[in-house]
C-alpha cells in the first residue's frame, strides 16, 4: 500500500569513479513501524546507502524516497533522527550544549533536551565537555541527538559500538522499544546476534546490492546437519553422492556441517554406517542469521 514504505529505493547507485561502485542498484523497502536491519560485510556500501537516504551523498543514478520526500530535503530531515558512523559533536561544548546547538538547527524546543538526556541516562554528565566522554557516553549522546526531533524514522549506524555488554543490552532494549508504533528504525550493524534480537526484517547487502531481504523467519528457513564422523574425509565423499545434500563444510578434524533438510538425517546415518564410517554425533541445527549471512556474502565461517 502506498505510504506504508518509509524508505523506498529503486536501483539506487553511487559510483565514485568509473571503477568504484559503492552502491550498485540498491532496491530496498523499509515499512512503517518496523525495525529494519541492514547487514553486510565491511565495504558493502551500507554506510554510503545510509548517507544517501539522509541526502549527505547524492545518487549517481536510481531513485529514492524517504518518508515520501527526496532525501535531504528539510521536510524529510525534520522527521528523521540519525546516528551515522561515529557520533560527532563539538568537543569543547558540553553534551547539553551540543544538543542545544542541534536543537536550534532542527527547530526543536530546548524542552526536548532533558527528556532525551534522561532516556539515554546522560543527565548527570550533561554539563561535562564532550571531549571528556567515554566512547559509550559519546554513543549515548549520539542516540540522544537522534531522538531530539522525536523522529518518525531513526537511522542508526552501528549504535552499540563502544558500549559494554550491559550498555549494549540497554541500547538493544531502547531500540526495540523505539521501533514500536509508527516509528521505523533502520539499523545497520555487523553484530548478527544484535540484529536477530532487535529486527523485524533484514536486508543483507553485498557489493552495494541487497542480496536477500526478508523477515528473520524467512531468512533463517531451513536447517543444517552437524555430523561427527571418522574418517571424516570418507564421510564427506559419501555425502556428495546423496540427493538433497548441499554444501558440506569441514570443522575441526572430525566435524562436518551439512546443508540438508533434517528429514535426511536418518538416510545420512544409514549411508555412513553401512559404508563403515563411525558416526559419533548427528544433530540438526536451525540456521542462524550469521550462517545465512556468511553463506550469502561468501565470508569465511570462523566458528559455529
Amino acid at each position, binding site marked *: 500500500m502506498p505510504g506504508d514504505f518509509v524508505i523506498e529505493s529503486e536501483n539506487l547507485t553511487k559510483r565514485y569513479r568509473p571503477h568504484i561502485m559503492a552502491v550498485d542498484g540498491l532496491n530496498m523497502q523499509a515499512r512503517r513501524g518496523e525495525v529494519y536491519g541492514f547487514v553486510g560485510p565491511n565495504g558493502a556500501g551500507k*554506510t*554510503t546507502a545510509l*548517507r544517501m537516504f*539522509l*541526502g*549527505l*551523498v*547524492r545518487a549517481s543514478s536510481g531513485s529514492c524516497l524517504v518518508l515520501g520526500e527526496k532525501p*535531504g*530535503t*528539510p521536510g524529510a*530531515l*525534520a522527521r*528523521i533522527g*540519525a546516528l*551515522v*558512523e*561515529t*557520533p*560527532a*559533536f*563539538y*568537543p*569543547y*561544548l558540553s553534551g547539553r*550544549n551540543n544538543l*542545544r*546547538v*542541534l536543537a*536550534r*538547527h*532542527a*527547530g526543536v524546543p530546548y524542552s526536548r533536551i532533558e527528556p532525551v538526556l534522561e532516556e539515554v541516562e546522560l543527565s548527570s554528565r550533561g554539563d561535562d565537555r564532550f571531549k571528556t566522554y567515554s566512547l559509550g557516553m559519546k554513543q549515548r549522546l549520539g542516540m540522544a*541527538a537522534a531522538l531530539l*526531533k522525536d523522529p518518525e524514522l531513526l537511522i542508526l549506524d552501528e549504535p552499540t559500538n563502544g558500549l559494554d555488554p550491559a550498555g549494549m543490552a540497554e541500547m538493544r532494549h531502547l531500540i526495540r522499544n523505539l521501533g514500536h508504533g509508527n516509528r521505523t528504525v533502520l539499523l545497520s550493524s555487523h553484530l548478527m546476534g544484535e540484529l536477530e534480537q532487535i529486527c523485524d526484517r533484514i536486508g543483507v547487502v553485498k557489493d552495494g546490492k541487497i542480496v536477500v531481504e526478508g523477515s528473520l523467519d524467512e531468512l533463517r528457513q531451513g536447517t543444517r546437519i552437524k555430523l561427527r564422523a571418522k574418517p571424516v574425509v570418507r564421510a564427506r565423499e559419501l555425502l556428495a553422492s546423496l540427493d538433497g545434500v548441499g554444501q558440506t563444510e569441514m570443522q575441526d578434524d572430525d566435524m562436518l556441517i551439512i546443508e540438508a533438510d533434517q528429514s535426511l538425517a536418518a538416510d545420512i546415518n544409514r549411508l555412513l554406517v553401512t559404508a563403515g564410517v563411525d558416526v559419533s554425533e548427528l544433530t540438526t541445527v536451525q540456521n542462524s542469521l550469521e550462517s545465512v549471512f556468511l553463506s550469502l556474502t561468501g565470508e569465511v565461517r570462523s566458528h559455529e
Partner: protein
Amino acid sequence: MNSLLAELLLIRRRAATWILLGFWTAIALLFSYVLPYYAYTANTNFHGRGIVLYVLLPQNLVSTITTTFPFFGGTMVLILGVLCMGSEYNWGTLTTVLVQRDGRLKFFLSKIAALAIAIVPFVLLVFVLGFVASSIIALREDQAIMLPSMWDLVRALSVGWLLLAAWASFGVLLAVLSKGTALAIGLGIIYGLVLEGIISSFGQQIDLLDQVSKGLLRTNGYSLISALGSSIPAEAGPGGFSGTTVSGTQALIVIVVYILLFVAFSALVVKRRDVSGTS
C-alpha cells in the same frame, strides 16, 4: 534565526575565538602604540620626533589603528574563518548538523552570518583599546584628548570590518576546499604573509606582477585604508607594504567582490559536494 543563534553559540563558546581576539588586539596595540611610543620616549632627539607623537594622539586614531588591519588583522580572522568552517570537517560535525532540519545553504549562510557578527568585536575592541592607549599617551605628554570626527570613525570601522570580512571569508573558502583546518591555515598564512608580499615587491621591477598585485587582497586593503588618510607602514617593518596602491573606490569594489566570490564559491561547494565519512 535559530541556526544563526546556534552558530553564534559555537563561536562564543570556543576558546580559540577569544585567544585570537586577544592576540590580535595585543599585536595591534603593540605595533600601533606601544613600540612607537617606546621609540619616542627612548630617543629624545631624532628627526621627525614630533610627527611620531602627533600620530599617536587620539585625533589620529583612525589613521594609526587601521594600518594594522590589512596584515595582522587579516591573518587573525583568516584563522578564525578557517576554524569556524574547517573544524566541521575535522570533527565530523558537518554530518551531525546537516542531518538536522536545515538545508545545506541555510546552514552555511548561518555560519557566514555568525562569522560576520563575530568579527565586529575584532574591529571594535581594537579601536576602543587604541583610543585608551592614545589617550594615555596624550595625558602623559600633556596633549589634548580629541576624538576623530564621527564620520571618520564610522568609515574606519566599516573599512576595518570589510577588510576582516574579506580575509575571514577567504579562510572559509580555504577550509571548504581543503575539508579541514591544518592545510587551510598553512596555505592562508603563506599566501597572506609571504606570497602577496613577494608579488608586491617584485611588482616594482616587473610590470606584469605590478598589475597582478593591484588585484590582491593586501594591495586593495592598504589602498582602502590609505583612502582614509592612513600612511602605509614602511616596507621593512612587520606588515610593511611597498607595492603600488589603487584608488579608494577601486579598492572598495575589489574587496566587496572578493567577499562575494569567496562566500558564493564556498556555498556552491558546500551545497554540491558529497559529505562522505572521510570529509
